């Protein structure tokens, strides 16, 4: 995913140049360290991932992550290690369980309920019942002139 398909053409153009001296590359494990450290909250900062923080604790946490990655531990096990010690607070992505289902579910439920409600309402309106059928409308003529006025003023209203 992180490859650069965009400018494949440019890349091809440039490839022959790539033959010069050996380059320093990122340590093979570093991408995994970064991925883990980006998902953990720096415990003493305000809303920063461990990876982006300059605080001592965050830096030492990155060291611990790096060490565990080097030992070949699974990413999930490393995350779990911090979770067991610092609790829910340490995950920037809240776990999907218990009360957090409110957090994960509510937006989609709300959306579903909203779409359903709107479709129902639209169907009802289409069948002819005006919305707000309990009260009689303002006298039609009055309403019409008012709206005509609004339309007129819309066209020329200034700040």
């Amino acid at each position, binding site marked *: 995913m992180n490859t650069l398909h965009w400018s494949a053409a440019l890349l091809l153009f*440039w490839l022959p140049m790539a033959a010069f001296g050996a380059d320093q590359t990122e340590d093979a494990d570093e991408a995994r360290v970064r991925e883990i450290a980006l998902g953990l909250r720096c415990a003493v900062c305000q809303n920063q991932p461990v990876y982006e923080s300059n605080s001592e604790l965050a830096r030492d946490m990155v060291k611990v992550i790096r060490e565990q990655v080097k030992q070949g531990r699974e990413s999930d096990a490393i995350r779990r290690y911090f979770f067991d010690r610092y609790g829910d607070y340490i995950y920037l992505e809240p776990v999907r369980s218990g009360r957090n289902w409110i957090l994960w579910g509510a937006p989609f439920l709300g959306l579903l309920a909203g779409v359903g409600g709107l479709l129902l309402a639209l169907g009802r*309106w289409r069948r002819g019942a005006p919305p707000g059928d309990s*009260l009689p409308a303002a006298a039609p003529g009055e*309403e019409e002139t008012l709206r005509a006025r609004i339309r007129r003023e*819309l*066209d020329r209203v200034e700040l």
Partner: protein
Amino acid sequence: MSAWIEVGHFAALAALVLTVVQLVAPLAGIGLGRPVWIRVGRQAAFGVLLLLTVACAGVMASFLNHDFSVGYVAGHASRELPIFYLATALWGGHEGSLLLWVWLLSLFAAVAAWRHWSTHPLSMPWVLAILGATVLGFLLLVLFLSSPFERLFPPPADGRDLNPLLQDPGMVFHPPFLYLGYVGFAVPYAFAMAALITGQTGGEWILATRRWTLFAWAMLTIGIVFGAYWAYYELGWGGYWAWDPVENASFMPWLTATAFFHSVMVQERRGLFRTWNLFLIITTFALSLLGTFLVRSGVLSSVHAFATDPGRGVFILVFMTVILLFSFGLLTLRADRLKGEGQGRLENPLCRESAFLFNNLFLVVGALTVLLGTLFPLAVETLTDSKVSVGPPYFNQVFIPIMLGMLLLMGVGPILPWRRTPAGTLRRRFLIPGLVALAGLGGGWILGIGHPYGLAALALCLLVLSTHLDDLWQGTRARMRRDGAGALSALGRLVRRDKRRYGGLLTHLGLLVMVAGFIGSGLFQEERDLILQPGESTRIGEWRLTFTAMGSAARHNWVADEALVRAERGSLVLELRPQKRVYNTGRSQPTTEAAIHTTWLEDLYVVIGDPVGETGRAFRIYRNPLVAWVWWGSGIMGLGVLLALFQGRRLSRTRAVVA
């Protein structure tokens, strides 16, 4: 020399008294049936503006004079601070930025009192009183709980300087624009409340507030993007949006305001959704206040949080409670009077009106999602004995799909006709855009967009783009046929005739450009963390970067370690100079100055870390594709709004000529 601050302080106190007049006189005028009192309220609004201008000038002059006997100046400036930042340090801290807030509010109150005086006589007393009450609340906060006028004795010889992170042009412009946005919603809010109180909910308040809303929305957009830009340039983590509570606080009113001026079009045309529109504008202003509360009360921890103080928190909470309960209470009490919308009936579910309905649903659910994610940690901490964090991964996974639905509506809505859509029209207008979107899906897959959201976003962007271009083309062709004009002049005439509509479409296109930027920088960002010795090089994308040497740099108020990095791509050779800066006065933390090379396709972004060993240096290098599109897109959106704002004026002139 230090007389300035006392003049300012006195002016602010006098303004407080005059605000009470602005609040009470118009109400008395209504109660006693004496219009002259309403006029007094209007004059008071002008007076408040004048006095608060003097108050701001007093603080600013104290900054320019290095008057460190003023606590606020001593805390946010130093003798070495460049004059540009000295003048703008007024809003570099909590106290001063609140003063700026209240000054802008008084400015808008005065402008509203001036421009709407003769056009909206019924609403005016209430508008004056409501804006007066809002100014009063904030002024009390400024004067008694976070005063920028407080004096120190004995005065220190030098100040503690402005936070180095704020010594950046981005931070100079970000707060004023953001506040223009927040405060700009106060006027539509006041008109909406006046409409509720007087019962004139038909259309007057909408006419009065359309431009205010557009203006405030544009300012908020620019303010938010300035903030993102500042974060990108100054914080050195390669990104621009972190879903921080304070960022969310500015984003929520943006979402509801967007919903508002879409649904308000339905009210103008069809007389529908009155209660809903009032609800939206009140909510928008309420969310602006909420943002202030979140930032200033310390109830949520955030990178942006100002120094916290329980007294302030309590005051803002009480103030907010009064406003919210008053507004929403009145809305629910008066809601039944708003009925009688029988005129506007939807004949067919497939029409512009219903597209706006769904647009509103998605925007409001989006805003509620952001609200939920922002307040959930607070709720858990308060109601249970545990803590959670809700970070970017949550918002990216939940908010983005909702906005994808929004994008779909954006592609469909603008070309659906009002009232009903005949089946033929539907097929004709959506066949090609639909095919283009499908092609985008396939093309994206081939380009290597593996992420489903990315693919969907790309396809939907193409859908929106093609329906919008098709719409423009249809309109232009019709004009060409009618007037026999060339394509360009026909397009020009088309746009000029309905600036509001085409301004809106341009805004949509600007958003598309931004979304492209989000896809590029969000899904294709590359990063490298590594240690380089002088002379060593590395690659990222098509770039080859060589760490040549360490150097140093200095200005009169900072010194920096500076890495010299040669960046080559093909025959292009650049020199980048990322720095670690240490400012002379006070604050110890060194700041990270990223070296950024921007092209239209990608940004190369280099940050240095700590020294490693004798000569080595830690580097963090990013390649951020399309990130500049985010800034350009917001510019296009601004132009679109500008176009829409010009609507009334030009039309009235042509009408006058015709008449």
